[in-house]
C-alpha cells in the first residue's frame, strides 16, 4: 500500500505567500538561498561577476515558475537542479576558454602551501574539470550531498555519478601533485 501525502510548505515558510505574489516573501526566499545558488555558480566558473549573473537568472526563473514549486524541499531541489543545469549549459555554449594569466603564474610559483592558496588552486583546478565532474564535485563538497541525492539533480544513474566523482578526485589529486 502506498501512502500519498500532499506536499506542504514548512511552518513559517515564505513560499505560500510568494506563490500568491507577495514580493517581500519572495525576497525572503532569495535571502535564504542566495548563498547556495551564488556559490554553486561561483565554484563552477571561478568568476564572481558571472556567478552573480547566473544566480540572478536562476531566481528570476524561479519567480516565473513559483506556481510549480510544491514545498520547501522541492524548492531546494529545484534551485540546485536549475543552477547546475544552467552552469553546464553555459559551459557548453562557451567557445573560448579564458585563462587568467595571474592565476597561472601564481599557481606555478607557489612554494609555501597555505589554506588560502590551496583553496584558490583547487577552485582553479575544478574549473578545468569536464562540466559534469565539476557539477558533481560542487554538489558533493559545497552542498554535502551524497551520490544518491546528486543523481536526482543531475539526472544520471547513481553509479555514473560515483564514477564521475571518483574520476574528478583522481584528476584533482594528480594535478595537485604536479604542482608540488
Amino acid at each position: 500500500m502506498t501512502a500519498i501525502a500532499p506536499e506542504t510548505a514548512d511552518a513559517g515558510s515564505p513560499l505560500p505567500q510568494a506563490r500568491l505574489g507577495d514580493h517581500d516573501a519572495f525576497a525572503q526566499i532569495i535571502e535564504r538561498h542566495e548563498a547556495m545558488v551564488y556559490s554553486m555558480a561561483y565554484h563552477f566558473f571561478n568568476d564572481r561577476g558571472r556567478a552573480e549573473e547566473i544566480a540572478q537568472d536562476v531566481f528570476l526563473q524561479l519567480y516565473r515558475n513559483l506556481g510549480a514549486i510544491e514545498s520547501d524541499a522541492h524548492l531546494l531541489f529545484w534551485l540546485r537542479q536549475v543552477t547546475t543545469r544552467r552552469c553546464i549549459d553555459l559551459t557548453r555554449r562557451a567557445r573560448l576558454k579564458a585563462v587568467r594569466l595571474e592565476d597561472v603564474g601564481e599557481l606555478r610559483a607557489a612554494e609555501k602551501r597555505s589554506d588560502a592558496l590551496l583553496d584558490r588552486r583547487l577552485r582553479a583546478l575544478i574549473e578545468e574539470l569536464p562540466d559534469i565532474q565539476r557539477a558533481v564535485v560542487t554538489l558533493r563538497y559545497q552542498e554535502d550531498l551524497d551520490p544518491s541525492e546528486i543523481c536526482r539533480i543531475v539526472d544520471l544513474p547513481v553509479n555514473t555519478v560515483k564514477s564521475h566523482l571518483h574520476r574528478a578526485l583522481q584528476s584533482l589529486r594528480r594535478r595537485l601533485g604536479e604542482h608540488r
Partner: protein
Amino acid sequence: MNLENDLKRALRRESPPAGFAGRVLEQAKSGAAGSQPAGSRRRAESSPFHWWRAAAASVMLAAVLGGYALHEVAERRRGERAREQVLRAMSIASEKVRYAQQQVREIGSH
C-alpha cells in the same frame, strides 16, 4: 593532505555581493522575469486547491488497492521523462541553429 576536507573548505558557501536580493526583486517587479508568478493567478484558489489535493490523495489511495494508481504513476513517470527528453532535444537543436545564425551574422557584418 586530505583532499576531501580541502575541497569542503575551498567550496564553502559564500554570500553574493550586498544588495543581491534587492536587485533581483527590482528586475522581477519591472517585468524582466517575463511574467507574474503563476501562483499569484491562483490567489483565489489556494484554499480550495489544498482541499482538492487532499481529496484526490484519498481517492488515489483507494485506487491503489485495485492497481489502477500504479498504472497512473507509471504513466506519469513516462510522460515526465518524455517531456524532459523533448525539452532536452529542442534545447540542443536550438543552440546549434542559433550558433549557425550567429556565424551568418558575423560573416554578413564583415
